[in-house]
């Protein structure tokens, strides 16, 4: 006797957004059902996985991250190339940590120079990430947007307080605005409304819901993303029908647990611990609807990517 599994019907769909330019550009979004509910809808574009590099040599990074990258961390362009050639990253996110006004405070010119060098070294799409300082990001990200005219970079974080300036730059130079809100579905929606009012069109917006790493608020991010997907797919909430961009690597690898030496606090070996913390975080965020996962450890990325692939194939 056959069993009919009840199926939900959806009233909305996630928009398809094309990231980057040229042969290795890719589309994300397009889902018509809840994450991995392949029995209820279409998933024309699998989630994409990127690696996160910095514009300056990292300080205080976990041993296993430094070990896997080796010397290239001193040269952002070489670092990015390694991420693509050796580890198969779909996208590179360069975080402009050197521009942090509370630290090295490097200039917008520095940022432009590094971003250009990185872009020249890779053929996959590039995402450029500021320090979340409202004023400095406005200055730096506008300069980068202009210098990279037409390359369809992802540019973020675009926050409510600087959405006009950075949104206008994304609009003028044809990039994608990654709209960043602090783990709050109402604010996420509002920022998308504001970007729309500014003239940023729907094919140029991604949502960064702000994610927490495992043990550090992951469940809040999960809930917000889950609700965003419910509103988008079941309530036809037009302003939330965008792919979700998850900047998770930085969150996982800044935790104490990802850096503690082997066996300290009975936490086992450091290397697999950090990798698994990142892979588990990514897994949860994929299950909540993440479309672009920005990670730090290639092994963790490989695990998450494999899982996503198998889930979509089943």
């Amino acid at each position, binding site marked *: 006797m056959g069993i009919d599994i009840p199926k939900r019907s959806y009233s909305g769909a996630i928009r398809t957004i094309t990231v980057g330019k040229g042969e290795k550009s890719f589309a994300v979004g397009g889902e018509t059902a809840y994450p991995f509910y392949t029995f209820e809808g279409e998933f024309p574009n699998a989630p994409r996985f990127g690696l996160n590099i910095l514009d300056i040599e990292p300080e205080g990074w976990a041993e296993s991250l430094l070990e896997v990258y080796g010397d290239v961390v001193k040269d952002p362009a070489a670092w990015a190339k390694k991420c693509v050639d050796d580890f198969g990253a779909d996208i590179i996110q360069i975080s402009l940590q050197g521009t942090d006004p509370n630290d090295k405070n490097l200039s917008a010119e520095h940022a432009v120079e590094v971003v250009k060098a990185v872009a020249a070294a890779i053929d996959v799409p590039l995402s450029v990430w500021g320090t979340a300082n409202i004023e400095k990001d406005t200055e730096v990200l506008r300069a980068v947007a202009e210098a990279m005219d037409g390359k369809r970079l992802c540019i973020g974080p675009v926050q409510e307080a600087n959405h006009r300036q950075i949104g206008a730059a994304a609009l003028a130079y044809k990039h994608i605005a990654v709209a960043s809100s602090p783990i*709050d*579905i*109402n*604010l996420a*929606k*509002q920022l998308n*409304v*504001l970007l729309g*009012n500014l003239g940023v069109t729907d094919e140029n917006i991604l949502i960064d819901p702000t994610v927490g790493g495992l043990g550090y608020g992951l469940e809040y991010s999960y809930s917000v993303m889950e609700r965003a997907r419910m*509103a988008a797919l079941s*309530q036809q*909430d*037009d*302003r*939330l029908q965008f792919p979700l961009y998850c900047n998770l690597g930085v969150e996982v690898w800044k935790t104490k647990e990802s850096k503690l030496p082997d066996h300290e606090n009975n936490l086992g070996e450091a290397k697999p611990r950090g990798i698994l913390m990142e892979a588990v975080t990514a897994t949860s965020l994929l299950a909540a609807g993440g479309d672009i996962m920005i990670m730090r450890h290639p092994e963790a990325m490989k695990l998450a990517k494999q899982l996503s692939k198998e889930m979509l194939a089943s």
Partner: protein
Amino acid sequence: MFRVIAENINVMSKSIGPAMKNREKKPIQDLVAKLVANGSDLLDVNLGPARKAGDELMKWVVETVQEVTDLPLYLDTSNPLAIEAGLKVHKGKAVINSISARPERMDALFPLAKEYNSGAVALVLGTEGIPRDSNERAANAAMLMAQAGEFEIAVEDVWIDPIVVPVSSQQQQVASCTEFIAMLGDMAPGYSNTCGLSNVSNGSPDNLRPLLNQCYLLMLRHAGLTGAILDGLDTDILGIAKGKRPDLEKIVFDVMDGKEVDMGSLKEEELKFAKTTKMLLGQTLYSDSWLDL
């Protein structure tokens, strides 16, 4: 008949606070005259925590207010000594604002309500904080109703307060609050009710707060609310409370009842109320720009 409890006699007010402190009767009595003229049914006397000499202040304010009006007062402070001082001098039936479903509040205040033959606001706040849904509200309300019964307080003197929460941060909870009010007809017939309405718009843009307050008042009235703490100087919201806007009532009630509302045919103000009702019901997700979508 809907009862308005005016919220304006408040120690936090820039004009009334100093008058209380300096024991100046005139600003307070002038305000009372306006609130009475605007049709208030009761007046809330809010002294906040009133930790220091709250009892003396409450006694003085109650006497000052009642020199110029016979309206009954809500005695609103977290200091039980100040509540008792107010009850002692209050003429007519006062209302203690409020008794939450926490043992220390119930133990301290229900005996006072009995002793002084006063009413009490039964706030559905429990030991675990703000209830998470309509069922938890109902459970706390049941506990308060039972306690009030033990002290032989008449049901109409128990004013159930559902705890209105801000829609900007807790949209789902707004729907639970509405749902809970709708349950009261069955679970608490004969009881009074009230709410701190303007909390619904806390955190929303200032220019949109009146619309949120007015719309939610209509919605709660449709669900069965019969009293609310309101700005007694805001004639717009007072009009809404007293049923003077049947045009808006029709729109809000129709949306709530799931009737087909032709959004295209509505006037601008009606459209705002229709959109806001849908949003407050949780049919559309809140954002500060809900009216523009």
